[in-house]
């Protein structure tokens, strides 16, 4: 279980300029923001990462 402070503070980060690159993505509050930021380029380069879609398809948008 998580303390309510986790989702509450995470939303502030999510609304900040630091998290602008997560537009259109799906994230969990449990994930470490430092590590998410470290993977910023990887996420931005892959439009399907952290989105809901059928796995195993080869076509990309």
């Amino acid at each position, binding site marked *: 279980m998580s303390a309510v402070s986790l989702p509450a503070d995470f*939303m502030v*980060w999510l*609304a900040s300029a630091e998290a602008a690159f997560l*537009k259109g993505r*799906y994230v969990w*509050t*449990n994930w*470490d923001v430092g590590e998410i930021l470290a993977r910023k380029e990887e996420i931005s380069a892959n439009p399907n990462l952290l989105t809901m879609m059928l796995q195993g398809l080869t076509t990309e948008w």
Partner: protein
Amino acid sequence: MYFHPSTPLLPIDDQSTPRVSNHLSSVWHCQNKSTTPIPNMATRFPPRFTSLLHHTSYPTISPLRLALSASGKTIVISGGGTGIGSSIATSFARAGASNIGIFGRNETSLVTSAAAVRTVALESTKVAYTVADQVDAVATNAAFETLAKELGPIDVFIANAAYLPTPAPAATQDPAAQADFWRAFEVNVKGLQHACSAFLANAGERPMLINVSAGFVHLPTAAQVPGLGAYVASKAAADRYVQALAKEREELHVVSVHPGRVQTEMAARRGVKAPDDGEYADKM
């Protein structure tokens, strides 16, 4: 008010969440390979994108960090009277948001929540609440108009209100359970559409929608919990709905978030241990 220079940028690992290995983190993303070992339940949750996991706030996401300042922003939160919604409002107040608006069905909760937000907000921050059930389109639109009139164009809408039905079999034929099934869709989908539409009609130039989702919507069948079909189905529909909005409104910044397993009153009343939150539990 703000502290900045001494804030460590690297998070502190909280005691309750031991660091897990990269091997395990890769397991989750490779489960379609037949050779992948099946992790036990303790290592399955939460599904991880990062090796370090958190169960409480930490310095990197502290609202007092200068880089996270919400100064100049107008924030509106549905279901802001209780649970996670109320705490979100408080966090934005600590982040120095210029205007904070909350709405929900229960005025008593809203008054209490607004007062709590007021205690941590800057003197200059405006805090407002209005009573509205998002299932009611007219009332929801009026709520956003009232908040925008009082606070100005809305920059960020946090769609937090939700309804968690009493757990019931997905194939239930009990009329009350079937009505409850539909109630989830009324609040979590129809109500969301009402709220998002009203938000966009009263939004600033660069609107942001934070969709408080439920991780169940993208977890495999093996990870589902029996009895939550109505909730999960409605939250899945909600996620597709905000994706549709994102497609049509390029200027709209949409992001979905699983809030974590927080034991709120809504969940407690349903005896569910993996809840999200919303004020709709109040009177149900």
